[in-house]
């Protein structure tokens, strides 16, 4: 945790704790820092931050850090932390909530590819009711390339990424594991209505 000095500022803490608890459905205050979650976290070593630390961050109202850390973006949603927590706190759902807050506030995520991926997945679902892998990966790579050109590594990174995907694509084709027929549901209007409800809810 890179926080300089621990300071308790209720005006920062309270709204953040409340928002995260409400949206994730998790009682963060039940955490007594036993660190079983930390011991089981497969990415903890790499991120340098474990679920217990993240909970402390939120309790101290450090919003910016809670949204911009490697754990939130590298969490693989394996649910080991939540399964082992003696107080039934599902930290993965806290991570999900922080991702959502970050998205709604239009904060560029620490790992932009992660949010681009999940957005593309949901967009693909909204188009046909089912995910068509080619369309989905196409949406993802296009969005990704746009971001790279704007903020990141430029053309070189984009070309390297495309090359890598093309290589995987070819090996998938050889094994007949690419599906070219479009999979579409009949009552797509129901899916559209559910998406609309989700948008209305987020807006209001």
């Amino acid at each position: 945790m890179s926080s300089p000095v621990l300071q308790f500022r209720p005006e920062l803490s309270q709204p953040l704790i409340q928002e995260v608890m409400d949206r994730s459905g998790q009682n963060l205050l039940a955490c007594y820092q036993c660190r079983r979650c930390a011991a089981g976290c497969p990415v903890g070593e790499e991120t340098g931050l474990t679920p217990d630390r993240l909970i402390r961050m939120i309790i101290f109202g450090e919003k910016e850090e809670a949204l911009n850390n490697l754990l939130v973006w590298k969490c693989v949603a394996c649910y080991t932390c939540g399964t082992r927590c003696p107080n039934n706190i599902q930290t993965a759902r806290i991570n999900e909530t922080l991702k959502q807050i970050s998205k709604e506030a239009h904060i560029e995520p620490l790992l932009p590819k992660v949010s681009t991926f999940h957005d593309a997945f949901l967009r693909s679902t909204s188009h046909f009711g089912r995910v068509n892998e080619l369309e989905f990966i196409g949406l993802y790579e296009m969005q990704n390339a746009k971001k790279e050109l704007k903020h990141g590594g430029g053309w070189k990174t984009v070309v390297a990424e495309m090359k890598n995907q093309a290589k995987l694509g070819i090996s998938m084709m050889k094994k007949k594991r690419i599906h070219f027929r479009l999979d579409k549901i009949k009552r797509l209007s129901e899916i559209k209505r559910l998406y609309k409800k989700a948008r209305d809810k987020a807006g209001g």
Partner: protein
Amino acid sequence: MQIAYYPGCTLHASSELYDIQCKKVLKHLGIELKEIEDWNCCGATSASKTDNFLAVALPARNLGIADASGLSEMLIPCSSCYNRTLVSQKILSEDTELKNKINAELSKKVQGKIRISSILDILVSKANSGEIAEKSIKKLEGLKPACYYGCLLTRFPHDIKISDNIENPQGMETVCKALGAEPLDWSYKTDCCGASATVNDTDTALFLMSQIIKDALARGANCFVTTCPMCQMNMDMYQDQVSERYGIQKKFPVFFITELLGIAMGFTPQEMQIDRHFVDSLGLLKELKLYE
């Protein structure tokens, strides 16, 4: 016996082989899979990372369709679909307001009747009843699988009880033993392969997979067996990259549990579509004289 069946998007695309295998093997065990009509994507873990409402609502539509099918049980072979659908069902059973809000948009409403089964729920009961051994004409002698469960078959982001042990599940081992294979005891059976990180955070995923493969190697396994299409795809398609980066010499076929059943029942690897794996898997079967 007929049961409802939700294949999910992956089983209609890159893991179509798993769809074919499930139908074939279960038919041989006397179960006919009735694919539910007009099913949609469950939203996988992407929905829960993006929108709480859609994460429940997308699987809910499928639950409504399944409830209207008149069948009492539904098989969901994909771990991610299985996980998200069970979670949705549980949340809706606890939150009537949300259920009504979602049902208002659906032509087939969620009633909460359908019992959701994983492929292991079905296969373990068939192993325990002796039906698997009875239908097998080959013993899978010499096959030493590391049974790989991954995350979503046993762990849920919600309070959901399953019949197997969460930290050390045994269902796949039970099935493998019924087939005459020798599943190994190992430490990484419920560790994460990285899931979608293979695409959006590749280094992390390759590292996670390297640990899983190294442990299987140390235990003397000669293959992996899994029930999850995401685990199968990752461990199979990315194995070359993992091995190269982490200096692992041995290659491990990554079988679906249905493939082992198929081989034991006398289907050819081609009928089971095992030739669609990335890591050569026919070599091991030949070596063990399970295929000429």
